[in-house]
Every structure is written in structure tokens, then in C-alpha cells.
């Protein structure tokens, strides 16, 4: 992760800067995802999903916990019994899906930023003929001197 940040700050090349940002962000994704892993668990895709109708039924009559039930437990949830991970309803342990969702979003945001950044680089190149920060600063300085 730090290498990415290092690249961003240290390099004067605009494209390399963006690569650095990419590295940095990808590493942050890794941080998130690594904390979602549950040892010995499966990806959060529930095997043999309850059939559509069953689920409705189960929501209605069975002892399955509804969201409201879960919420009632909030105060003690932070100290949940490990056994509850192997919930009988689910049968197996699954890795935590929430960070996955967040990172999906973050990846897309990252590529959006990248696209805008690259578009800017292209225009900068057209305007200045270079994509090195120092050279751009020089060009601006010269323009300033010429103007005054």
C-alpha cells in the first residue's frame, strides 16, 4: 500500500502518478477484503438457497430470525457467540459480504477517477507538450515572465 502512495508523491510523471494512485487504492481494497475473510468459510453465496416459496413461508412462520429480531439483539451483538457464525439456518460459515460490497463500489469509483485523470493528462499533454510536472512548472514560469 505504501509503495503506491510513495509513487504518487515522489514521481513527477503524471501517468505514473495515476498508476501510483491505482496501486494505493488496490492495496486499500486488499485491506478491506482481508478483514472480511473468515477462516474456513465459503464465499458469501448461499448454497442451496431456500426455495422462493419456502423462504416466504419461513419468514412467516418458522423461527427464522427476522431483521427486527436481529435488531433487538443489537446491544449484545458485538459479543456474539462464535457458534452463531455456523448458523443452523445457513448450515455453513460464510465470509463477510459487506466489505465485498464496499470494495465493489470503491473499485468502480477508482476507475472513474482514473478515467477523468487520464483525460486530463491527455489534455495537459496537448496544452504543454509534456507530462512531467517540472517541465509544466517551467512552461508556466516562462509564460508568466513573457506576459509581464
Amino acid at each position, binding site marked *: 500500500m505504501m509503495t503506491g*502512495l510513495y509513487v*504518487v508523491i515522489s514521481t513527477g510523471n*503524471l501517468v505514473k*502518478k*495515476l498508476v501510483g*494512485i491505482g496501486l*494505493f*487504492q488496490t492495496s*486499500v481494497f486488499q*485491506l*478491506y477484503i482481508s*478483514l472480511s475473510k473468515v477462516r474456513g468459510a465459503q464465499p458469501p453465496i448461499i448454497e442451496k438457497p431456500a426455495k422462493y416459496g419456502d423462504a416466504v413461508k419461513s419468514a412467516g412462520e418458522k423461527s427464522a430470525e427476522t*431483521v*427486527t429480531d436481529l*435488531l433487538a439483539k*443489537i446491544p449484545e*451483538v*458485538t459479543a456474539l457467540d462464535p457458534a452463531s457464525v455456523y448458523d443452523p439456518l445457513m448450515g455453513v460459515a460464510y465470509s463477510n459480504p*459487506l*466489505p465485498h460490497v*464496499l470494495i465493489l*463500489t*470503491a473499485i468502480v*469509483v477508482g476507475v*472513474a*477517477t482514473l478515467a*477523468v*485523470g487520464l483525460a*486530463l*493528462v491527455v*489534455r*495537459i499533454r496537448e*496544452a*504543454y507538450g509534456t507530462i512531467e510536472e517540472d517541465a*509544466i512548472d517551467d512552461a*508556466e514560469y516562462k509564460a508568466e515572465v513573457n506576459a509581464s
Partner: protein
Amino acid sequence: MSFEILLSNAAALVVVVPLLGGAIAMLLGSSRLAWSWSLICALATFSLSLVLLSGVLSGENISYEMGAWVSPLGILFEIDALNVLLITLVSAMGLLALLYGLPTIDQEIDRHKHAMFFGTFLICVAGLIGVSITGDAFNVFVFLEVSSISTYVLVAMGSKQNRQALTASFNYLILGTIGATFFVIGVGLLYMATGTLNMVDISRVLAETGSDRVVRAAFAFIVIGLGLKIAMFPLHTWLPNAYSFSPSMIGVFLASTATKVALYMLIRFLYTVFSAGQSFETAMFDYVLAPMAVTAMIVCSVQASFQSDVRRLLAYSSVAQIGYMLLGLSMGTVAGLAAGLIHLFNHALMKGALFMAVGIAGLGLGVVRISEMRGLGKTMPLTAAGLTIAGLSLMGVPLTAGFISKYYLVIAALENGWWWAVVAIVVSSVLAIFYVGRMIEVMYLQEPPKTADDAVVTVRSPILPLVALYVLVIANVWFFFDPSLPMGLANTAANELIGGAGS
């Protein structure tokens, strides 16, 4: 019936209307059509924010469950005195900036791009409102990026006037993204420690488990990440260029809202998520935030005094003014926080007006540098008068809103026993006299440029920008005589934030 639906869903619609409006605006081919449509959307957004405002003023905080999922499963919008102030501010400034913008945009941007430009602008407004309104830490990130990416684009649109807009936008993009990524790391660490993303829920869990190293690291990352967005000294290097090379309408809007929203987020995290009064937080207030704020107030005021480009001058002054707000919130007292919030509100009014006035001058006479403003008092008397009043407000002269905020800030500092802060406020105000005084002097005391036949060039300013300008100028005076709206909200907010943490 349908009206009731509108009211009960105002919290969601205040974000959704500009978002969808923006998507539609980009498809409208004609510039005028897109502008009118955007104006309608902005007006609708503003009205919705007023609905929220009246709701909060009646004493009840509003919460809205997205998708009807209860928190912490779903995303919860939570509106209290603190963010309703921001929401109203952002939507009002969006409306005014649009009202102001049409003639300037005609000059600054190719016509066939107008529709997309206005679309992006609406999305930017929506993003900032989204950041202010949401109660979910990760949703903050998403909307922060909505607003940021649109901001990068909008800033880059100044490139027709000056190619430096491109590099300004790029630097903003790099630093902004680093900031956002730091923020995400912080949120991730918080999630690691608490298992939830809803801000109130996080603070509840933190209160139970106490802080450990993860939480402290999260705190540091969030403060730095948001600090970059706030342009907290010394992380402000992107700001002057971004403000001064962007299209003038964008300068107006950004200067009065963007950093404010990030600052709001910081307040939210400092006071709601991490409860104030924890030792590491107090230490950071005393040894990091407050000294930084004071340095910014003085150093950037000095920098502002040496600028020859008007908009850069205003931009540096903005960094200094952000210092005032940070100083207020770093006191950690109700009075200090409230003073910071009042200044946040007032500063948006004055900087918005200043950028508008400079933009109008630029429209008429191509003014970029201070020296080019000479004789503005004769050539564009209304604009010059507006600029003067807003400038006085920036100095903190009585009869303008700027006085109120400085007054409360000084009082809060005194109550806290921070004499050095009072001295800093005074020094910075004196510096403000210099840099504002320079503009006023050039405008009124130097002869305007003459045409060949020795006649004074008179310029008719377009009417809409002037209307927008004077709305803000009048607001600057109005909120001196009747500051009950921002003050009431700020005090309520500060009491809720700090009182809530203490109980």
C-alpha cells in the same frame, strides 16, 4: 396526497432531484434549455431543503431510511441542526451560482458543452448535499467522490480561458483522491473495530468498547483524509489554483460550499463518531488542529496580501478563513464549535459574493489582476459596491455578518482562555484589512482606463449575475442584524454534539 409524499420523502428527494435532474440536463441539447431546466431543479432542491429546514427548526430531527431498511442494515439519512444548515447552504448556493452563471458560462465554455456542464454541476450539488445528509460512513465516501469527480471536471472546464485549469484540476484530483483513500482507510479501520458503518452506531459501539490502537489510527487517517478535502493548512496547496482557474461560476460555488461540506464531515466525525473529550482527541485539538488553524490564519493571509491575481487572493484568504473555522471547532467547547459553524455559514456568504463580484468584473472588463480593477467604482459601480460590502464582511467590520462570526469566535477563545488565539484572530483580521483594502483602493481611487476619446468606459453588467450578487450582499448585512437563523442552528448543533457526548 401527492404533496404529502413529497414532504415525507424530502430527505431523499433533496439528493435525488438534482442527481436525476443532472442526468436529464446533460441530454438537453440547447444551452438555454439545459440552463432553465437546471435552474428549475436547483429551485426544487432548494425548496426541499427548506422543507427539511422548517422540519428541523420545529424541533425534530429527521431520519430517513433508504429502501426502508432499518439501520444499521440500510443507509440512514439523519438530519439535525448541524447538517440542515449545510444542506440549505449548498442548495441555496447552487441556485445562486446557476442564476449567476449563464453569461459567464457563455463566455468561458464552448456552447455545445453547456448541457453536459450544467448536468455535471447539478450532480456536484447533489454530491455535496449527499455528503451532508447521510448518516453512513461509507455512503459519505461515495458522495464525496460524486462531488469530487464532478468538481475535477468542472474545474478543468476553465481550460478554455487558461490552460492552467488543467494542471490545477489534475493536482486537485491527485490530492483529492489521496484524501478520499485515506478516508476510506479510516472508515475501514473503524469498521474493523466496530463492525458497523452507521456513524451513530459506530459511536455507540466505541462508547462500549473504548478506543484501541485501531480506532486511534482510524482517527488519524480520517482527519488527514478530510483535512486534504478541507484544504487544512498545510494540505491546502491544491486550493488556490483550483479556485482561481475554474470557470467563475464554479469558483463561486466551490468557494462557498466544497470545503465547508468537508469541514462538516470532520465535525461529524470528531464529535459524533469519536466522542469528544477522549484524551487522544483533546491532544490532537490542542497540539495539531489549533496550531495549524492559527498558522493558516496568519500565513495564508500574508500570502493573500502578496497576490496580484484577484481570485488567487480570495482563494488564499479562503484557506485563512478555514483556519478560523478549524480554530473554533478545535476549542472543543459549545461556544467554540458554534462560533466555527456560524463562521462557516457567514464565510460562504461573503466569499460567494466576492467571487461573484470579481466574476462580473471579469465578464465586463476581463479583470484578472488587481491592477486591472482600477476605476471599477466608476465603470461598474454596482459591482464595485457589492464587492466592497462583501470585502468589509470579510474583514469583520460591524454591520456585516463577518463581524458576528469573529465576535463569537473571540468570545469563545476568551472563555477558553486562549489568548494567543485572540491575538491570531486580530492579526489575521488586520491582514485582511490590507488585502481587501488594496482592492477597494484600486477600485475607487484609481482612474478607470480611458478609451481613445478620453471617455470613461462604462459597462452594463448583465442583470442576472447582479441579482445573484446582491442576494448575497444583502444576506451579508441581513445576518448581522438578525443572525438568529445560523446562530440558532449552530448553537443547537453544538449543544447536541457536545452535550450528547458528555451524557
